[in-house]
């Protein structure tokens, strides 16, 4: 019956820091023995006695919390509401995105059977929801560990004083949740689309028999090989929006993080869009066939000019976003 006591002690101490474990173990053991002696005197304690004493000490994990003193959180109370809020949005967006992608797929190429459709829907949805859950949780766990450095107002060890209180953030430095959520939704939709339905991005033409044909934008094989780049780029985007939601206003730290993420996204975007063989030849030929292009022009050259223009626009937008938010952050920073 002593075994039960030992099991209880083990349950309390197993997760405690190594250094204190032995000492707590011994103290707990002698305390339990004291409590047993108090009940039974010199007699051997019965099962009921032991159980009564252990019940008096209560749930071993709560007792262990008492010994541990500080509680550690994966996601603490101050971030939990935001976490839950973001999680709901992300999961809703993922489910919506997959439903959309599969609906388009269903219309364009009807599957063999409804069973197939249902199976692939459930499979994709579960997989994606778990992924979304994992990523949101990982990001918030990182924020939990780093939050102090993202949003702190005092330097370590600096003494607090009333005139060092942060200035009230100007209205313009507040990040509207709707803005971040829109960015998040957009990025998640893009993740779903690129990962599950890149062949559905293209031109839709319905012929006389009412059958829709798609001319995809991308060369499927090249695109699949570049998918990791696309996903990292989109993950950077998602991470950026989540940070914005979590911090809630443009701090200098956040604005620099934003600059960094924008630069990273742009680098990846540039690499992706300039990759050889990315475009579907039929897609380029399509424009020439339909007579959209001047006679005698090379569709590839025209297309490349368009892409260069697109790169310039994206670069400008990213630069603008980075600078505007840096200015906002500096204008509204803690020390004036």
């Amino acid at each position: 019956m002593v075994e039960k006591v030992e099991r209880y002690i083990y349950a309390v101490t197993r997760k405690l820091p190594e250094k204190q474990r032995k000492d707590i173990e011994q103290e707990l053991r002698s305390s339990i023995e004291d409590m047993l002696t108090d009940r039974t005197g010199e007699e051997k304690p019965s099962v009921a006695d032991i159980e009564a004493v252990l019940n008096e000490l209560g749930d071993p994990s709560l007792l262990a919390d008492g010994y541990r003193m500080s509680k550690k959180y994966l996601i603490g109370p101050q971030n939990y509401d935001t976490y839950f809020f973001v999680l709901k949005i992300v999961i809703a967006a993922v489910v919506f995105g997959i439903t959309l992608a599969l609906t388009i797929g269903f219309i364009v190429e009807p599957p063999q059977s409804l069973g197939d459709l249902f199976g692939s829907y459930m499979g994709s949805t579960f997989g994606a929801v778990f992924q979304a859950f994992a990523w949101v949780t990982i990001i918030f766990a990182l924020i939990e560990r780093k939050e102090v450095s993202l949003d702190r107002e005092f330097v370590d060890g600096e003494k607090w004083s009333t005139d060092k209180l942060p200035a009230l953030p100007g209205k313009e430095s507040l990040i509207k949740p709707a803005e971040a959520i829109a960015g998040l939704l957009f990025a998640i939709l893009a993740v779903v689309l690129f990962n599950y339905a890149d062949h559905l991005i293209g031109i839709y033409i319905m012929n006389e028999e009412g059958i829709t044909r798609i001319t995809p934008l991308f060369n499927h094989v090249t695109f699949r090989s570049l998918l990791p780049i696309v996903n990292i780029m989109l993950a950077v985007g998602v991470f950026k929006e989540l940070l914005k939601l979590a911090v809630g206003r443009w701090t200098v730290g956040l604005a620099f993080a934003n600059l960094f993420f924008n630069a990273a996204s742009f680098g990846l975007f540039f690499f992706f869009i300039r990759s050889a063989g990315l475009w579907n030849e039929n897609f380029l030929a399509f424009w020439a066939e339909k007579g959209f292009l001047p006679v005698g022009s090379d569709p590839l050259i025209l297309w490349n000019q368009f892409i260069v223009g697109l790169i310039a626009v994206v670069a400008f937008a990213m630069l603008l976003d980075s600078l505007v938010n840096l200015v906002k952050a500096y204008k509204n920073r803690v020390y004036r």
Partner: protein
Amino acid sequence: MLNNLDELLDSLVLEMRRGVIILAVMSRLGDSQYGYSLVQILSDQGMSVEPGTLYPLLRRLERQGLLESNWDTSENRPRKYYRVSQQGEVIYKRLLEEWGILSKSIKSLTESGEEL
């Protein structure tokens, strides 16, 4: 509903006692005591503290330097004895003063004739 009220009351009482238990514990540790003997002494004085609360508390106070401890292994049941440290004595006296002020103002707030 009644159950909820009881639970609420329990948790409020627990919260109220949490801060005061330290005073009760330190008041009895001028002489060395081990965990369970302290549980009994306190309970004899009407201040029953769950062992599961007291044992971790003793260690915390020790770590904060308010108590000091030593293992007595001379008997067949080794026991860890705690007593108030020098620093703990100073803190104890200051805490006691604070408690006096606190209980006086609560008394005057709740017995002035204007209260609830």
